[in-house]
């Protein structure tokens, strides 16, 4: 199970990469594996604003739908449009080309509420066994 060290994580299996005041968000390797083949990704528009824990979109596989929640608050500055035609990228490269949105961070203190890679690994162990 891939859990890159330099990212933050949520209990809903999203990851966050922070660069300055921009947060790039996607779903984790664990999440994409649980979902199965992703066939559809629904993402917001640039300019939409979210508060932490708001649902900002959804990821669908043949058998399941999962909402995706904003780990932190902010305004959408970029959306990964390539996922419309190639949703399977989420399965193939969840931490790289499978990124979903970029938010302009509203409050960097919110990052303290997220899990580190080690915390997330622990969390997975408890969740999955």
């Amino acid at each position, binding site marked *: 199970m891939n859990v890159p060290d330099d990212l933050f994580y949520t209990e809903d299996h999203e990851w966050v990469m922070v660069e300055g005041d921009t947060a790039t968000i996607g779903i984790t390797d664990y999440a994409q594996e649980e979902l*199965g*083949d992703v*066939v*559809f990704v*629904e993402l917001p528009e640039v300019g939409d604003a979210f508060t932490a824990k708001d649902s900002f979109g*959804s990821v*669908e*596989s*043949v*058998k399941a*739908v999962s*909402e995706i929640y904003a780990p932190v608050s902010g305004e959408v500055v970029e959306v990964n449009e390539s996922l419309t035609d190639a949703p399977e990228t989420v399965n193939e490269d969840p931490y790289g080309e499978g990124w979903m949105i970029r938010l302009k961070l509203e409050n960097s203190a919110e990052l303290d509420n997220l899990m580190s890679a080690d915390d997330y690994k622990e969390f997975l162990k408890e969740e999955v066994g």
Partner: protein
Amino acid sequence: MPVQYSGALQEHLAVRKAVGVFDVSHMGEIEVRGEDALPFLQRVTCNDVSRLGDQQAQYSALLYPQGTFVDDILIYRFARNHFLICVNAANREKDYDWMLKHRSGSVSVEDTSDRYVQLAIQGPRAADVLQQLTPLQLSTIKNYRFAVGPVCDVECIVSRTGYTGEDGFELYLPPSAAEKIWRALFEAGKEVGIQAAGLAARNTLRLEVRYPLYGNDIDETTTPLEAGLGWIVKLSKEEDFIGRQALESQKSEGVRKQLAGFEMVDSGIARDGYRVFFDSCETVVTSGSYSPSLERAIGLVYLPPERAVPGEEIAVEIRGRKRQARVVETPFYKK
């Protein structure tokens, strides 16, 4: 059978392009024997059992007096006094009790589900793969016919039937031979890319060709006429059958609802149970999913006959938002 083995999309496409194997042992088998087996089955099913010759199969249904489904079934005739009925897993007990209750004359009804493992080998290469394991000449087993003979030296029922819309076979075999035959199939099919296929693929394959699923598209509140299965109802057969009167009335009055296929126009996948809106009415999606072969979201829904026409627009509520969909012709997928 798990939801998926290697991936639902891959498994679905493997069945359409090559061959996939489903472990469908959960299905039930009920054996009907006796001198009065044929008249009994004529009475409890809506299709015409007298059309069956030995080693022939028929899709049919057990109906309630109001013409609605107890279950959809497959009837296999071994001989005039010996039939095997394949029933849905969830309805096995219900069907068995129903048949026992309506027995009359010299007939025995036995639930023999535990005697059989059932494997479905489906896809354009299914025959090539299975032929390697049996001396039975598969090319002589035509659609909806079956033979009894050795597969891996074990006596099996080999039937050219399936739930995918592809050519293929359903094997009924003794549980003790299951592992041997499963392994042999995969060995024989290695070159053509045989895949184990699970529930997700099973569902998307059958949905694409508009095969109904009991509990979703058909149940005790729907009739074969409403479900677009009028072809399994033989009102002209001599014998009276349970549900006949109700269906005759429905036929002359016209159905009030009809199972229609739709595809999403707006983005989103319509799933089972999602609310559907048209005019000032509301209903639900009976079956809905993403179609791997068509790369589109498709589904089935009951609509009034005048709305169940290709081109008619309906709205499906997906995660709180109403999105456009459109009635289309079915089957959605054609070879």
